[in-house]
């Protein structure tokens, strides 16, 4: 069986916030065209991992290559070029609340200056249709939408530029189970339609089973298990077993709080591309 080339290769990635060592020498390969889901408890540094790959947080040590190009220590210009391959769905949607829906969706297209505003609006309508939204939302502002609709608009924004790589940060958090399934379905379809490489992070097992080709488990700053989705139920790894069955008892030490997540939300990123 021929293996697809590696799209994102991570070796020995380290990232600390003060005394809090969040990532402690993490290794991970993301094969091109596959959907990898990173699972792990709250505060284990899943968001930090995504932000390090995007260069939104500078890594302390290690190497991250995207199509063979190094992200760690790259110049702003290089980072800007690499980031153009990505689309990201943020946990809280992170829609620009000063802009109407269509401008949010078309933001990446307008930033690339390939289209004028009228064309961009047309494109936004097409892209919104793919996530099941119609013309009636075009001129609404993000604050006027429900949580599920915001997630859809954010998904539309992430796929608008037809990126090679899609990141999904907790795509179903804060949604009811039905809406969560709708979003999972949309994520799955978007990835397949674009033929994109996808990296998602979640602790929602329903989501994992729906969108993953491969699963990697992050615990104490390293990937402790990685395999195909089908293998997850017979991984033979007590940590993975405890996590996927959601048991309080087991080898995973439950942290008292989640310093990593807090650090990420507030930590300013490097200035710009």
């Amino acid at each position, binding site marked *: 069986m021929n293996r697809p080339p590696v799209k994102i290769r991570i070796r020995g990635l380290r990232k600390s916030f003060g005394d809090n060592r969040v990532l402690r020498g993490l290794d991970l390969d993301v094969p091109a065209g596959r959907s990898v889901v990173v699972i792990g408890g709250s505060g284990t540094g899943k968001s930090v991992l995504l932000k390090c790959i995007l260069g939104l947080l500078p890594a302390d040590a290690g190497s991250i290559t995207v199509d063979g190009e190094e992200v760690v220590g790259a110049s702003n210009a290089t980072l800007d070029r690499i980031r153009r391959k990505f689309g990201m769905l943020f946990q809280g949607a992170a*829609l620009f609340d000063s802009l109407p829906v269509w401008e949010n969706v078309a933001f990446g297209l307008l930033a690339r200056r390939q289209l004028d505003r009228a064309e961009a609006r047309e494109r936004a309508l097409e892209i919104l249709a793919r996530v099941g939204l119609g013309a009636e939302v075009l001129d609404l502002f993000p604050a006027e939408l429900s949580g599920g609709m915001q997630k859809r608009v954010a998904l539309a924004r992430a796929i608008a530029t037809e990126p090679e790589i899609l990141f999904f940060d907790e795509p179903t958090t804060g949604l009811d189970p039905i809406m969560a399934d709708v979003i999972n379905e949309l994520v799955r379809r978007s990835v397949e339609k674009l033929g994109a490489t996808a990296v998602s992070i979640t602790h929602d097992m329903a989501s994992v089973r729906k969108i993953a080709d491969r699963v990697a488990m992050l615990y104490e700053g390293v990937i402790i298990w990685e395999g195909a989705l089908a293998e997850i139920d017979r991984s033979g790894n007590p940590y993975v077993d405890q996590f996927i069955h959601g048991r309080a008892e087991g080898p995973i030490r439950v942290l008292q709080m989640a310093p990593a997540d807090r650090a990420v939300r507030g930590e300013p990123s490097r200035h710009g591309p």
Partner: protein
Amino acid sequence: MNPLAVTGRATIAVSRTVGGIAFFALDGMIRGLRGPWYPRQILRQMIEIGYYSLPVVGLTAIFTGMVLALQSYTGFARFEAPDAIPTIVVLSMTRELGPVLAGLMVAGRVGAAMAAELGTMRVTEQIDALLTLATDPLRYLVFPRLIAGMLMLPLLVLVADVIGVMGGFLVSVYKLGFGPIEYINRTFDFLEAQDVISGLVKAAVFGFIVALMGCYQGYHSRGGAQGVGAATTRAVVSASILILTADYMLTEIFFSR
């Protein structure tokens, strides 16, 4: 506690902040000037700062002009020189009170809003989202605000100068018994272009300070709603202090000419 260590730590903290702000300002200006430009954003900020601050600045100016006329009358009537009032009002307004009061009012209105907006964008990951959409937040968010602050505050001050003089005029004519034509003539008798220009230069610097502190504090805010609140407070306080400090230094420079 070792007093040396405490002093050292405070000194390092201050230097780091000052350096951080200076670097942020330079980075914002250089990257912004290099482009790509976002004229839509610049225009939006110009309207926000210039147009929507008019009522606040106008009210401040008219009452300041009125108070100036009353207070200087109280003083100058004692040595029989009430004729000096128009000159005092116009010089105080153009050289000093116009730019400083407009700067402080805009710091409270616009600086706070900038810090809150950018701070919210930071904690809700909108700034990260900009980066993933191939848009530099320094070019898209910070530069338009810096430019708009620098361009619009002088215009506001020009309006404030006129309104302030009008305030002095109203009080002098209707309360202190000046002749209207005499008042206006005296206003312009000793007024030089440099008085107005020095005030406008001050205004440009203050506008930059307000926008810079609003953007810097917002951009670097952390920790949710509380963090955004703290950033907003810091933006207003630091901008106000910097305005008063810069005011003295600029006056010193203009004074020696």
